[in-house]
């Protein structure tokens, strides 16, 4: 292999990216060295097993990925703004919509939510930690390394270009030569391991680590939604693991699972992909539902309406999510009967979803609503999500799908669902729990600007696309003719896209502004909250979360205590030594070996792949021999941290 095959060359934008990557790296190295931050970085972050810090790292990575995926989106929208534009060529366009879709779903939406789950769920259930803190670090680092492996594809070797669905035979060696598709397979595979481990970790955490008195039906809704999500993860992710492995075998070792030669079946890929892919959609939407439930209840000053109905509808959705996958290929010849069955199951999902919408509305009804930014995002979610849902039911009609299939109608539909559902939730949750993570609120006035610019931009961008779709504009085209008449609406859409980009910049500015100027919180209860995470006396919970594990007597326990004026003060004599796990550098090192293995496989350099895999196993076995029972935090230290006067 020659250097110019290894590095992507020829495109000035890529050279620009190369330069900026190198400059950023040098900048970071310089900063760390100059301010002697290496030890701090290692001790506080790279080796941490604290769920709150891991959560913050997840969120920071997800915001970076939102930036990367967003730049991809704006490049596409720029290309599509006018007919017959020459900004991107077709191959480049294909690469960009592939990385955009993959990054947004796998490396942005899911990690963002998992990050918030990491920060919040142990606090909400009154636990000191998750069930397996060390494993939690392994999950984060494998996700991070998977994401990095995927991301470097555009400067080293070339990006995948077969769409985020990677349909065969499009993704085969013949039609997608070069390492691009391998990056997709290995990046997702490595990150997927982390996701599965998170699923197990949080399932056990929620089942086993709840504070005394917190029965399943006293758990906050966000915890419930996380529980259901973890169950989906545990059953869905192994399917993805297998599907990716089989395609990897096809590409690297000449097997014939999905190829046209050797009697392989390309439709098998479509089935496996969507058997995972549809549940994946609920993995990124259910935690969002949970968050909106918390936020709406908090800022309506009312208990969530229909708590149990919410839970049952969530369980129904989870079950259904495995039964509808065929709606993703209605037009690929499954036959009328199969299509009808899947059309009906798909529409049935609308019912439990509708139940939830009404529950939110009834929660607000007669509530004392406070229009804070998290609440604004929640209200915006309801309106926009309904638009996405209604068009989803339209798509669920198999017969009609022959009309809208693979047009911008679909593109608009899934962005309405994913952005209004997941991205709004990520913003809402980030702002809502920001004081828990950093000890101050984001500025509300700037926050409202972000909300309005983003929401208006979002509708300007995607509403016209319904009409473009009905007018026949297909998805995944890199340009269109003047005569098609699609030009004006596309221009409008692009303007909306850039408005969202501007909103993102204002959000980042808000983080900077609030870091500098926001008033610091003095208690842990920044929003007058209802659930246990707000009951810690200090603004940011210490690494052991609760000095004394709370005892729960019902739903919204903390809120009812406050109403009754009976919030217990922490007393020095209640404090006992607290057992905590020790930090470990092994997860980070293990993930680095995953990177070596993955990189080797991407380029089909087997010596490197094998070396990496041996490294992974070596770290596993090393850990098996490590008997680290953690350590105890002394009573004095707890008293000191909690500032209890004797």
């Amino acid at each position, binding site marked *: 292999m020659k250097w110019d095959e290894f590095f992507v060359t020829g495109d000035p934008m890529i050279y620009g990216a190369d330069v900026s990557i190198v400059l950023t790296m040098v900048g970071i190295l310089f900063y760390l060295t100059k301010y002697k931050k290496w030890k701090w970085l290692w001790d506080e972050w790279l080796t941490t097993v604290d769920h709150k810090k891991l959560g913050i790292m997840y969120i920071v990575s997800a915001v970076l990925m939102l930036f990367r995926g967003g730049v991809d989106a704006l490049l596409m929208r720029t290309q599509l703004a006018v007919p017959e534009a020459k900004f991107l060529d077709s191959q480049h366009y294909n690469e960009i919509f592939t990385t955009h879709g993959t990054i947004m779903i796998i490396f942005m939406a899911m990690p963002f939510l998992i990050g918030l789950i990491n920060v919040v769920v142990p606090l909400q259930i009154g636990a000191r930690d998750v069930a397996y803190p060390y494993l939690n670090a392994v999950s984060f680092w494998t996700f991070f390394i998977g994401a990095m492996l995927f991301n470097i594809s555009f400067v080293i070797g070339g990006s995948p270009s077969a769409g985020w669905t990677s349909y065969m035979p499009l993704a085969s060696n013949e039609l997608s030569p070069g390492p691009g598709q391998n990056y997709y397979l290995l990046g997702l595979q490595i990150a997927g391991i982390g996701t599965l481990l998170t699923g197990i970790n949080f399932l056990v955490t929620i089942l086993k680590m709840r504070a005394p008195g917190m029965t399943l039906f006293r758990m906050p809704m966000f915890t419930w939604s996380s529980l259901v999500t973890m169950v989906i993860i545990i*059953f869905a992710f192994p399917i993805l693991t*297998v599907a990716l492995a*089989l395609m990897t075998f*096809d590409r690297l070792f000449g097997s*014939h*699972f999905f190829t046209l030669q050797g009697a*392989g079946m390309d439709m098998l890929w479509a089935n496996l992909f969507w058997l995972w892919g549809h549940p994946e959609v609920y993995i990124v939407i259910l935690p969002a539902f949970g968050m909106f439930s918390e936020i709406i209840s908090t800022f309506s000053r009312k208990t969530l309406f229909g708590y149990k109905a919410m839970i049952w509808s969530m369980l129904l959705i989870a079950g259904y999510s495995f039964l509808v996958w065929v709606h993703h290929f209605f037009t690929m010849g499954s036959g009328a009967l199969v299509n009808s069955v899947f059309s009906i199951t798909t529409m049935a999902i609308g019912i439990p979803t509708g139940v939830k919408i009404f529950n939110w509305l009834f929660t607000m009804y007669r509530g004392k609503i406070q229009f804070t930014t998290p609440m604004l995002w929640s209200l915006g979610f309801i309106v926009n999500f309904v638009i996405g849902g209604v068009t989803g039911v339209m798509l669920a009609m198999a017969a009609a799908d022959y009309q809208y299939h693979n047009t911008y109608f679909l593109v608009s539909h899934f962005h309405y669902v994913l952005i209004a559902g997941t991205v709004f939730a990520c913003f809402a949750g980030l702002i809502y729990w920001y004081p828990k993570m950093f000890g101050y609120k984001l500025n509300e006035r700037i926050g409202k600007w972000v909300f309005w610019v983003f929401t208006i931009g979002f509708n300007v961008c995607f509403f016209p696309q319904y009409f473009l779709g009905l007018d026949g504009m297909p998805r995944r085209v890199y340009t269109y003719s003047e005569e098609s008449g699609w030009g004006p609406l596309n221009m409008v859409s692009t303007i909306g896209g850039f408005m969202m980009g501007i909103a993102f910049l204002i959000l980042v500015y808000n983080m900077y502004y609030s870091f500098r100027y926001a008033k610091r919180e003095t208690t842990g209860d920044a929003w007058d909250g209802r659930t246990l995470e707000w009951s810690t006396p200090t603004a940011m919970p210490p690494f052991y979360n609760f000095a004394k594990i709370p005892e729960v007597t019902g739903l919204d326990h903390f809120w009812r205590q406050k109403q009754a004026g009976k919030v217990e003060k922490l007393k020095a004599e209640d404090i006992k030594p607290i057992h905590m796990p020790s930090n470990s550098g092994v997860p980070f090192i293990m993930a680095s070996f995953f990177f070596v293995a993955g990189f080797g496989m991407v380029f089909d350099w087997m010596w490197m792949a094998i070396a990496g895999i041996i490294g992974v196993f070596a770290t596993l076995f090393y850990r*098996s021999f490590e008997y680290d029972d953690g350590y105890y935090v002394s009573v004095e230290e707890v008293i000191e941290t909690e500032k209890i006067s004797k």
Partner: protein
Amino acid sequence: MAHAETHDPNTPLEYRSETGRLNILGFWIFLGAEIALFATLFATYMVLSHRIADGPALGELFEVKSLLIQTFLLLTSSFTCGLAVHEMRRHNVKGLITWMAITLGLGLGFLYFEIQEFLHFIHEGANIGTSAAWSGFFVLVGTHGAHVTFGIFWVTMVLIQVAKRGLTPATSAKVFITSLYWHFLDVVWIFIFTAVYLMGMVTHNG
């Protein structure tokens, strides 16, 4: 991460520490994920098992003798693994190590015959690239074999720890978890035996 220990003498050692209990529960859930993984591989194999292109049919090359030896070795190893855990419950470290060592030996024997069989198939012109059916076969059976291989390493590591530290709540939980893993591989093999080998031979000869 609390380390509450139960001292009720009737509780098996592996359930005495909180960590032990959590790890065992987590491992059961992990096995749930493994079931999803193997179910997907089985489904793939079923869909592809008749798509042989120009290659040999699957049942054509299967051999009863090798199959029976492999099955015998693996089923026996599951039994001896059970005996090992039984000895552990009686706090008999020596018995535990002996029976586990026998389990490992049987596992190695299984692997030996499996590899021989794979080499035989390849010699007869059936490899992973021969046809979709053979791809499905090699990946399904190979994944199981890779699990057995990993299991042998893992059990060895745990045995070394038992030898060094004796039976503690921590080591016994590890032994117990590896035993769950080993039995699970046995169950998967029974499915492979039926769905792959028996059905392959029946459809070919019958």
